[in-house]
Structures are given as structure tokens and as C-alpha cells.
């Protein structure tokens, strides 16, 4: 068991924290913390509970929190006011973290499959048996198929770095994460334009275009909160979305853009900004390359041209371009996060990056800022070399610009099914759930059927765990000790967090770190895990001697943050060392060096008239949260958003059960008939229609979006492309 050096907060500490936060950060977060009447009231009794710092794990944001513990039981989670990245908040999902800990659906012991795969027949086994079995199977696979015969997949988690480390020591190149089902297209585009994945400084921005990002529902800290703040201060936020989302509802203006045409909008902005010379000529000359080529490329892409593509009036496009340029450099096209939309999503996001370049907003307040230094040291080791291994990943060279450390799940899955370029027969999965997040669920199932051994480490019996041979129970994030994690908070700089257990691990759960450490010993590479978590943290913090004490005191540490503009004059990490409007690298590789717009292909089948789009609610983090007791009260099932006019044509009324069908599969769910979506588009939440018998609230409830999505991917980086599916919709029982 890991050591427990929890921070206990007295009431005085609370007030001190609150007061400090009030002076250190914007008053918004602090106002709420110190209840005014507390000053006037008689001295309050000391709280009858312990307060311990934690870090939320209900999504990827990892907000700082304070857990209230009464008699060893967590009874409430509150925001940590010192954690300014979240602006002192904890969202509905964060609050529901308590229910995740005490969920009766949690995995309690190691389980060995005894029936057919997916049949749900399990045998309880001991940890010793489980780890011995896993080690034996991994040895067998290495002997039979080389070490690259094992695939390792870890989701967003502070311990996932250990899975990657283990894979490297074991000797497999085949590592995927959730990212190739989410955000790689955007990263690709910004890396290839700016040499970096920048962060938006929303708080200081005067003008933000939110396209392909529903930031007021798909919460990203601090961006979501800052969008609301700047709206109140008179900044303009323009939302492009085929849905009237909550972001659309509160935006300065909303345009129901035709899905798949964002690039036309962006190129028309570039057209206006260049034609009217609304850019900073000195900046463009000094920091960018390819302006002439871009100017020629977009010369014909006028607002009138873009109106025909996007459905947004030309006058609005021209006006937005001028307003955006007038607000520059404190203006941005928001880069977005999930960008797994279309087969040309890298090029779509390149067009976002190019407009940002024209705004001259790099490293400027209210613009895009480079990732801030965090000061964490890597904990290196010498990975062994296995000379029988194949030359690369199974998905190597499948697309021109694969991120080698992430790969492409969709392409890897095809390789496993085909058994080519070489057989991949084992799968180690930690806290990621491709059966519920990868398009075309039946193909993920087909992939799993090709495996000799599959082990899943998770806290509940996810749909992916349900398919495994061996399932190992992990503790929740409130029950374990974690390494230091750096989080980026835009211009305000990075912050560091860690976790110490708020309560002891429940059931027989063991953190994946301990699982991997034991396996590393059994497989003959103990040196790769020659540390415990406290030692690892010490090595990470070697350059920040004061950090550990401050982390204990405040639950968060802020490393020194250089002021904006310090990258002025420094080369960009691109081939030309400038911002590449025109990508020479793409030109060399035979890719379009400037984003070439192609109208989205129409549905190949008139019966499938609706484009299926994905998105989020603030109460849902995909399949990892939908089974949560509290969150299921807000989102008990998913519904199909269907335009009211289209519904009328189809004879579908509010609440009717509809059958949705695509070439990938089908599903049944209730219709939400609404004017809040275009008549050519339908939408549903992810994370429902589960198949696992261990998910009591979502099994068979609503429809699974991955049952419907076709397996498309970004042609440049292999990221999943989940908006390329057209579906038919009809009332259940109708002919």
C-alpha cells in the first residue's frame, strides 16, 4: 500500500485558502468561498469532518477538489479554491464523483472469464492467480508473435504513463490511447502550422469564434468559464454549429452552419482579411511563410462563395472577418479539442490555424499561447532492444503523418482483424473503453475475437472489460496515490497536481501502477519499475524543491510562468522555422500544402438523409459517466435530436421511439423533436446502449452511437472521423 500523507485542513485553513484565493485570483471564484455572513455570525464550531485534497477524475480536466470525509466515508466533494484553472468550480460530474466511489457496479475482485467471450460468465480469482496468468500469457505471446504481438491501450489518467513505460520495457511499439478517437486532427494541424499545440487565452480575448466546439457543455477548464466571463465583459463569441447548443444559446451570435463546411467559412475569413489587408504586415513578414501563396489560394473564396457552402449569409461572414481582425491580436478562432469529425479534419483545422496566424495572435494576450513550462523532470530508463521485433507499429505508414506515440486505433483495429502486417494477439487495456468509443462497435468486437488474451484494468465492468479474458479492479482516483501531473491553464501558466488517497482503496482494487510493477518483475524487467510513487514524485520534482510542500499545503503548485511574448524572435518548430501558412512539409509529401476545400459528400443513399453528429452534455463524459447514479438522474437515456420539420415529414412525434440505421448498424431510442437542430442533421449523446451486464443503468438503455458510426479516419493522421455517417430515421413500427 502506498503511504498516506494526507493534508488535513482545519476551518482556519479553509478561510485562509479562501482569503488567499480572493487576492490571488479573480473575485469570481473567491466570492462564493467566503460566505459573507460567516463573518457576522458567532464563531462557528469546527467542522465535524476531515477535509482532504483530491483531484477530480470524472473527465480529463482534473480539477482540484476538497473531499469531505466523515468516519472514513467521502460525503461531499467541493472545489479547491486554490485551484484557479477551474476558476474554483466543480461541475455536476465532479460532484457525482462520490457516487463513482460508492457505485455498487464497481469491480470488486479480479475476474476470469469462464464462459464464451462477452457472455458474462466470470469466476472470482485471487490477485496472485490473476497476475501469474497475465504474466504467463504475455510471455507466451512474446514467444509466439514477438513482443509487438501485444497491444497496450491506456486512457486519460495520471497513471497511464506507466502503461506506456511498461509497453516500452516489454518491447511493444503497439500503444494507443483514447486520443486517436478524439483530438489528434487538431493537434496535427496546429503542430504542422505553428510547431506546437497552443492554448487559447480566452480570458483576455475580445473575439472568439467557436466552431466545432461546444465549450459551454463540453467543459474545458478554464476556457468554458472564461467564455462566460468575457461575454459579460462585452467580448464577442460567435458560434458555428448545426445544433442550437447551450454555447449557441448564450453566444453573441449563432450560425447553424451546414455540417462539414467549416473550412469554407475559415477560408472566406482569410479571403477578406487578406483582400482588405486587415493583418499586421510586419508580423506576417517576420513570423509567417507562404502569405503570397495563401493569398492566391483564397482569392476566389469570397464570402459569397462561402455562403453557398455554409448557409451563412455572405454579409455576416465579411462582417465577422472585419470584426475579428479589428479585435486582433486579442482575437481567435478557438482551436477546439475533439476534432475527430471528417476524413479531412486535419486540413479543416489547418484552416482554423491559418486564420489565427493572420490575426497575429501568437503568444499575445487574448490569442493563442504556447504551452507553458511545467518544470517536471522525466524519469528516464533504458528500454531493452529486442531484435526479433518487426520494424514498427502495425499501423505504421498507414497514413502520411501518424503520431507515432499515439497511432490510430481505427487502423490498428483493422490490422488486428487482418492479422497483417503481423499478428497482434494480446491486449492490455487500462481505463479506456473502445467498445463504447470507437466507431462501428461490431468491428471492435471482431478485433477482440482475434485475440488470444485480453486483460482490462478498470473500476467498472465497461463494455470493453465485458469482452476481456481477465478483468482487474482498479481503485477510483480518490483512493490512490498518483505521480505529479502538469496541467495547462492557458496564459496563466501550467499547474502541478498529485493525488494522495482520500480513503483507503475499496474492495480488492489495486492501482495499475502496482499491477504493472508486479508484472514487470515476473516478466524480467523489474528495473523499469524500480521505484514507488513517492520516489517517482521526488524524481519528477527534482527541479522544483519547494513544490512538494506547497502541493501538500494547497493541493496545487504553480511553477514560474514566463510572461507572454517571450517567444518573440525565436524560431517556430516547423521546417521553415516560421508559422507555415503554406506547409512545405505537406507539399513534399504530396499533400495539399494549403487547405483545399471540397464540399462534404452528400449521402450515398437518399433514405439516409441525416448526418449523425456527436457531442456532449455537461453531465456526460461519454461511457465513463453515464452509468453514474447521480448523473443518470440528469441523463437517464439518450435521445435523438430531430428537427421538428423533418419529424413532421416522417410522422414522428415527441417521445416516439425511432429506429436509426446506418451501414454500420442500428439502434432504437426516443426522438427529441426540436427546432434546435438543422433538418439535415441528427444528434445523440455517446455512452448509452451499453452491452455490459456490469452497467446496471445503461445496459440496453438508449442507443449506442458507436453501433451507428462508420469506421472512417482522417486521411493525414488516422484520427477517427465520426461525422462521416448518414443515417435513416423512422418511427418504430412504421413501414
Amino acid at each position: 500500500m502506498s503511504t498516506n500523507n494526507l493534508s488535513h485542513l482545519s476551518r482556519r485553513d479553509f478561510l485562509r485558502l479562501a482569503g488567499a484565493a480572493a487576492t490571488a485570483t479573480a473575485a469570481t471564484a473567491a466570492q462564493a468561498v467566503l460566505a459573507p455572513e460567516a463573518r457576522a455570525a458567532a464563531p462557528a464550531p469546527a467542522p465535524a469532518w476531515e477535509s482532504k485534497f483530491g483531484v477530480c477524475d470524472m473527465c480529463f480536466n482534473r480539477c482540484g477538489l476538497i473531499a469531505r470525509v466523515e468516519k472514513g466515508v467521502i460525503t461531499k466533494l467541493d472545489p479547491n479554491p486554490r485551484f484557479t484553472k477551474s476558476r474554483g468550480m466543480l461541475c455536476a460530474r465532479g460532484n457525482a464523483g462520490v457516487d463513482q466511489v460508492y457505485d455498487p457496479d464497481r469491480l470488486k475482485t479480479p475476474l476470469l472469464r469462464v464462459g464464451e467471450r462477452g457472455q458474462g460468465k466470470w469466476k472470482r480469482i485471487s490477485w496472485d492467480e490473476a497476475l501469474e496468468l497475465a504474466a504467463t500469457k504475455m510471455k507466451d505471446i512474446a514467444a509466439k508473435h514477438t513482443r509487438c504481438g501485444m497491444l497496450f491501450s491506456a486512457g486519460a489518467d495520471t497513471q497511464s504513463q506507466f502503461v506506456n513505460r511498461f509497453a516500452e520495457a516489454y518491447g511493444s511499439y503497439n500503444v494507443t490511447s483514447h486520443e486517436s478517437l478524439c483530438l489528434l486532427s487538431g493537434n496535427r494541424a496546429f503542430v504542422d502550422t505553428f510547431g506546437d499545440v497552443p492554448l487559447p487565452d480566452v480570458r483576455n480575448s475580445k473575439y472568439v469564434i467557436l466552431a466545432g466546439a461546444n465549450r459551454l457543455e463540453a467543459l474545458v477548464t478554464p476556457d468554458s468559464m472564461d467564455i462566460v466571463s468575457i461575454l459579460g465583459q462585452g467580448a464577442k463569441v460567435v458560434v458555428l454549429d448545426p445544433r442550437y447548443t447551450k454555447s449557441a444559446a448564450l453566444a453573441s451570435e449563432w450560425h447553424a452552419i451546414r455540417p462539414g463546411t467549416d473550412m469554407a467559412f475559415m477560408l472566406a475569413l482569410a479571403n477578406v482579411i487578406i483582400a482588405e489587408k486587415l493583418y499586421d504586415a510586419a508580423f506576417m513578414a517576420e513570423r509567417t511563410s507562404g502569405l503570397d501563396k495563401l493569398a492566391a489560394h483564397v482569392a476566389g473564396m469570397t464570402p459569397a462563395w462561402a455562403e453557398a457552402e455554409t448557409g451563412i449569409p455572405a454579409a455576416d461572414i465579411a462582417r465577422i472577418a472585419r470584426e475579428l481582425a479589428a479585435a486582433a491580436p486579442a482575437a481567435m478562432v478557438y482551436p477546439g479539442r475533439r476534432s475527430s469529425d471528417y476524413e479531412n479534419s486535419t486540413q479543416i483545422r489547418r484552416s482554423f490555424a491559418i486564420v489565427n496566424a493572420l490575426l497575429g495572435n501568437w503568444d499575445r494576450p487574448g490569442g493563442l499561447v504556447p504551452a507553458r513550462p511545467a518544470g517536471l523532470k522525466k524519469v528516464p530508463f533504458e528500454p531493452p532492444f529486442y531484435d526479433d521485433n518487426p520494424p514498427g507499429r502495425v499501423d505504421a505508414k498507414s497514413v502520411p503523418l501518424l503520431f507515432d506515440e499515439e497511432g490510430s486505433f481505427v487502423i490498428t483495429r483493422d490490422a488486428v482483424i487482418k492479422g497483417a502486417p503481423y499478428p497482434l494477439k494480446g491486449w492490455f487495456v487500462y481505463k479506456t473503453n473502445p467498445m463504447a468509443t470507437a466507431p462501428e462497435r461490431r468491428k471492435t468486437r471482431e478485433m477482440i475475437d482475434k485475440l488470444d488474451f485480453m486483460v482490462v484494468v478498470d473500476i467498472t465492468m465497461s463494455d470493453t472489460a465485458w469482452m476481456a479474458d481477465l478483468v482487474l479492479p482498479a481503485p477510483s482516483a480518490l483512493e490512490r496515490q498518483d505521480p505529479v501531473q502538469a496541467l495547462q491553464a492557458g496564459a496563466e501558466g501550467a499547474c502541478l497536481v498529485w493525488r494522495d488517497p482520500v480513503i483507503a482503496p475499496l474492495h480488492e482494487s489495486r492501482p495499475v501502477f502496482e499491477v504493472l510493477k508486479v508484472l514487470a518483475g515476473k516478466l524480467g524487467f523489474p528495473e523499469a519499475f524500480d521505484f514507488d510513487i513517492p520516489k517517482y514524485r521526488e524524481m519528477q520534482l527534482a527541479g522544483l524543491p519547494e513544490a512538494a510542500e506547497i502541493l501538500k499545503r494547497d493541493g496545487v503548485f504553480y511553477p514560474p510562468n514566463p510572461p507572454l511574448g517571450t517567444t518573440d524572435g525565436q524560431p517556430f518548430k516547423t521546417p521553415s522555422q516560421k508559422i507555415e501558412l503554406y506547409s512545405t512539409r505537406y507539399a513534399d509529401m504530396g499533400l495539399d500544402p494549403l487547405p483545399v476545400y471540397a464540399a462534404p459528400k452528400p449521402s450515398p443513399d437518399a433514405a439516409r438523409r441525416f448526418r449523425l453528429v456527436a457531442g456532449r452534455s455537461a453531465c456526460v463524459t461519454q461511457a465513463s459517466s453515464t452509468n453514474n447514479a447521480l448523473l443518470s438522474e440528469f441523463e437517464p437515456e439518450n435521445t435523438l435530436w430531430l428537427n421538428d420539420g423533418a419529424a413532421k415529414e416522417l410522422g414522428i412525434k415527441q417521445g416516439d421511439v425511432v429506429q436509426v440505421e446506418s451501414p454500420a448498424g442500428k439502434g432504437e431510442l426516443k426522438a427529441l423533436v426540436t427546432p434546435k437542430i438543422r433538418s439535415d442533421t441528427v444528434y445523440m449523446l455517446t455512452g448509452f446502449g451499453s452491452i455490459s451486464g456490469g452497467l446496471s443503468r445503461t445496459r440496453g438503455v438508449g442507443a449506442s452511437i458507436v453501433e451507428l458510426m462508420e469506421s472512417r479516419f482522417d486521411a493525414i493522421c488516422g484520427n477517427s472521423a465520426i461525422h462521416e455517417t448518414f443515417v435513416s430515421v423512422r418511427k418504430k413500427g412504421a413501414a
Partner: protein
Amino acid sequence: MNAKLAMVIDSAKCIDCKACVAACKQANHVSRGVWRNWIKEAAPPLENGKLGRGHFQPGACMHCDEPSCVAACPTGATYKNTADGTVVIDHKLCIGCGNCLKACPYGARFRDPVKRIADKCTYCPERRAAGLAPACVDTCPTKARVFGDINDPGSAAAQLLAANKGRVVRVIAKEKDTKPNMYYLASTAPDGWAVKPVDPLSFDALSQVVAPLVKYAVGLSGLGVLAMLGRQLLAGPKPEATPGHDTKEDGHDAS
């Protein structure tokens, strides 16, 4: 001057994320299926065939200055705490008769399906005693909910009210202004959802709802309950229902 705890809500900041609703449920161990607070969504206006700006309205018990629920309670379980202005339910005295549920024009009360008694927002006294804001206020991502003693000019809530003088509105039922202490900046949309409070002393209510419940209550709690009911009956004529609007400009006069 006594304190008057109130909530001042900058609803333009509300993104309808339900964090306040979730936090309240966790902090107060509210049963599944019922809620002490809410966020209501205004139907977006249609402007040139396009949906216009939306508005979300967080709410909860408004801790009114003239609470119709207090008058409706036959046992005295519901009362106005004059020290801090909160409307409180003494769970030991509540018999679960449900009068107060109908008496509240805002639907702020419910019968807890497990405890079988009335329940509603308390402004989290346990948290306040520990120097913390109510759970919904503490957790709010955009800090739309601001809480405090509006009789203390130094409080954030009083300052927000003062800074927005002339813009502050309240949700008020057409039939009766209960002088709610829930203040909204600029907009109370959606309007018109507050209902007519059902006064248990009216003949209709007495014959249809209250009488059997009172009998039941008397059977349960004996003469003490009857005495309390008698006290309320003798308390004099109710104030005339004020003809009003759903939203009323600046309710600051209530202090």
C-alpha cells in the same frame, strides 16, 4: 439589524450545467428523483426564423418575507427564522401533510419519498457554520449564484444588488407577492411558471385537501397540532392578494 440571507443570481452567466443541482443533492443527501434546486430554461425567442439568445434561470426556495408556506403549515414545523431570514422546516414537527407544497407558488417544496416529510433548500446551515458557502454557490462554474446577507452592505450579495440597482427583478406569482428573496439581474425568463399558492384556509382547499389531512394530523399528533392550527385560524385576515406581474422591478424595498 437582523441578517437577511438571500441569493442574487446573475442568470446571464448560467450555462445550465446542473453543477448546483448535483452539489445540492450530494451536500444534503436528497433522495433520488427529487431536488431542492433547479435550473429552468426559457424557450428561446424566434428572431427572423432563427433561434435567438437563450436564458437559463437557476432557482430554489426563495426564503420569502411573506411566505405562504408558513401560514399553510398546521404544526408550526415551517417557520421564518427572524435571525437570518431563512424559511426553515423543523423536521421533527413536520407531519408530511403536504399543505406547504401547494402553498408555495414556486414549487420549491417536495415531499421526500423516503422520509415522507416536506423538504426544500436550507441554504446549507452546516456548511455556513463551517465558513463555507451553500453547496450550489460554492460549486457553480461561472459563479452565477451569489449568496449572502443583503442587510450587510459589505456582503458580495448586497454589493451585487447595489451595483445593479434598477436591473434587479424577482419571480413573483400573479396572485400573491410573497416577497421572495431570490434576486435576478436583468431577466427572470422563463416567466409565468409561478403558480397560484393554494391557501389551506380557503373553503375549497379546506374541503378538498386540508380537512382529511388535518384529521389525519390530529389523529397523529393530538391536540397540540389542533392548537397550532387554531392559532393560525385566529391570526386574522390574510392580506389581499396583490395584483402583480410575473416579474417585478427591483424588490430591494423588501429589506
